[in-house]
C-alpha cells in the first residue's frame, strides 16, 4: 500500500444521479469530466461505502459537497461520529453543479460548527485572487487547503462541432492544469499558514517535487490514476531513488503523498 490517505468522491446529503453521459472526454494534454457529483447520499455512503473503504487500512478523507451551508453542516455532523473518517474535505468548487448561494467562508464556518474533525477546504483555480479565498476560509476555521479542483473547459466534436460532453462544459484536469495548480499553491502558501494538499496534473515524482517546492505539504493524484492505476507506488519509487536525495526532503514530506480517487478500486488494484 503506497497511500497515506484515501480521498473519497464527493458525498452530498441526498443521493444524486449526476449528469447525463457522455461525461468524460480527452483533450490535448488533459481531460474534461462532468460527472456532476453522482453519489449515493450520506446515509448510504456511511452505511455501505465507509466500511468497505475502511478495510483498506488507510486514513480516510471524505469529500463533502452540497447546495447550501445547511447541506455542508448536515453531512459534516453525520461524519463527525464516524471514527474511521480522519479528515473532512469541503468541496467548495465543483464546476459541474450549481454551487451554494453562500460564500466559501460561510460554508466552512457552517461545517466548522458541525464537526471537530480537521477540515480541508478545496478551492477552485477559477478566481482572480486565490490567496484571498485562502485567507477567508482560514479565518472561517479551515485546518488545511486542497488545491486545486478542476477548472471549466469545453471540447467540441470535430464533425458536428457540438460540445462533446452532454452537459456542455466540464472540469478540466490533467497535465494541462499543472501550471495553474502550481501557481495557486504558490500564492496560497505565501498567504496562509495552513498545510496544503497540492493536486492538478501530477504524473511523476518530478511533479511532486514541484508541488512541494511551490508550498504543498502533500500531493494528491487524480487523472493519472486512469492511465496508470499504480501511479502511487511508481511515484513513490521515483521519489525514493533518484529525485529525492537531491533535495533532501524530510521523510515527513514524502509521507504526505495522498492518493486521491473516486472509489476504492484504485487502491484495491494495488
Amino acid at each position, binding site marked *: 500500500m503506497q497511500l497515506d490517505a484515501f480521498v473519497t468522491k464527493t458525498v452530498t446529503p441526498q443521493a444524486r*444521479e449526476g449528469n447525463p453521459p457522455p*461525461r468524460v472526454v480527452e483533450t490535448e494534454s488533459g*481531460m474534461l469530466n462532468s460527472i456532476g457529483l*453522482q453519489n449515493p447520499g450520506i446515509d448510504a455512503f456511511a452505511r455501505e461505502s465507509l466500511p468497505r473503504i475502511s478495510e483498506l487500512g488507510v486514513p480516510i478523507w471524505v469529500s463533502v459537497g452540497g447546495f447550501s451551508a445547511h447541506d455542508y453542516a448536515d453531512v459534516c455532523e453525520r461524519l463527525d461520529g464516524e471514527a474511521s473518517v480522519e479528515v473532512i474535505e469541503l468541496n467548495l468548487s465543483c464546476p459541474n453543479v450549481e454551487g451554494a448561494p453562500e460564500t466559501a467562508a460561510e460554508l466552512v464556518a457552517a461545517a466548522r460548527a458541525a464537526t471537530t474533525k480537521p477540515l480541508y477546504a478545496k478551492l477552485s483555480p477559477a478566481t482572480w485572487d486565490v490567496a484571498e479565498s485562502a485567507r477567508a476560509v482560514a479565518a472561517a476555521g479551515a485546518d488545511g487547503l486542497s488545491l486545486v479542483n478542476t477548472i471549466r473547459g469545453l471540447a467540441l466534436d470535430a464533425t458536428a462541432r457540438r460540445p462533446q460532453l452532454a452537459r456542455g462544459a466540464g472540469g478540466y484536469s490533467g497535465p494541462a492544469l499543472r501550471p495553474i495548480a502550481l501557481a495557486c499553491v504558490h500564492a496560497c502558501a505565501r498567504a496562509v499558514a495552513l498545510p496544503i494538499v497540492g493536486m492538478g496534473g501530477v504524473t511523476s515524482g518530478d511533479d511532486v517535487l514541484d508541488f512541494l517546492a511551490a508550498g504543498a505539504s502533500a500531493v494528491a493524484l487524480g487523472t493519472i490514476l*486512469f492511465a496508470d492505476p499504480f501511479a502511487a507506488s511508481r511515484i513513490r519509487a521515483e521519489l525514493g531513488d533518484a529525485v529525492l536525495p537531491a533535495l533532501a526532503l524530510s521523510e515527513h514530506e514524502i509521507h504526505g503523498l495522498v492518493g486521491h480517487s473516486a472509489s476504492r478500486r*484504485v487502491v484495491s488494484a494495488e
Partner: protein
Amino acid sequence: MVSATESVGPFTLLRLERGELEPGVPGQFFMLEAPGRVLPRPMSLCQAPHGELAFLIDPIGPGTRALCALRIGEAIHVLGPLGNGFDLDLSRPLLVAGGIGIAPMPYLAAALGDPPAILGFRTEHHAEAAGLLPGAEIVVEPRLVTELLQDDPGDVLACGPEPMLEAVRRRVPRAQLAWEARMACGYGACYGCVVEIDGRYRRLCVDGPVVRDAA
C-alpha cells in the same frame, strides 16, 4: 511489451506479452495505455494465444492510432481483465458482430467451441477481418446482419455499433449484448462511463460491457 503487430484489413492486431495478466472471460476488456494520450483506451480481448494477449484495433482517432502505431518491443500499461463478460452457459450460441464488434468474437468462439457466427462489415476491406473467425457468414453493407437472423436464432451474443445492437435486441430480446461507452478509468472509480439502464445511470465498466438484467 508488444510482441507483434499485424494488419487485418483496416484494423491492427496488437499482440502483447501476457505477463501475469489473466485473459479473463470473453467479453471482458482491458484498459490499454495509449502512448502520448492522457486516458487509456478500452479494448476487448480478441485472442489469447499462449503467453500473449491479442487486441484487434480500429484506428479511428488519436488513441487508437497511437496504439496501432506501437512497435515490437515497446511497453504500455495494461489493466484487466475488467467488467462483465458473456454468460457462456448456453445451449445454442450464435455470435453476431458488426464492424470492429468482431474484436471479442475469436476468443469467445474458442470458449464456445466455434459456434455459428454472422458478421457484418461496412466494406470488403473491413470484411478481411472475418479471416479471424473461419466459417462465419458474412454480409457487407447495404446488407445488415439482422437480415440473416432466423426466427429462432438461439442464444445470441452480439457486439457492434449501437444501432446494430438495438436492432438485434428488437429481434432477439434475450440476446447478450456488449455495449460501448467512453471510459476514463475502466475500473469503476470515475463514474465517467455511465449509461442509462432501467432509468438509472449505471457504470458500463463494472455493470457491463455485457449488461445483465437490462430491460
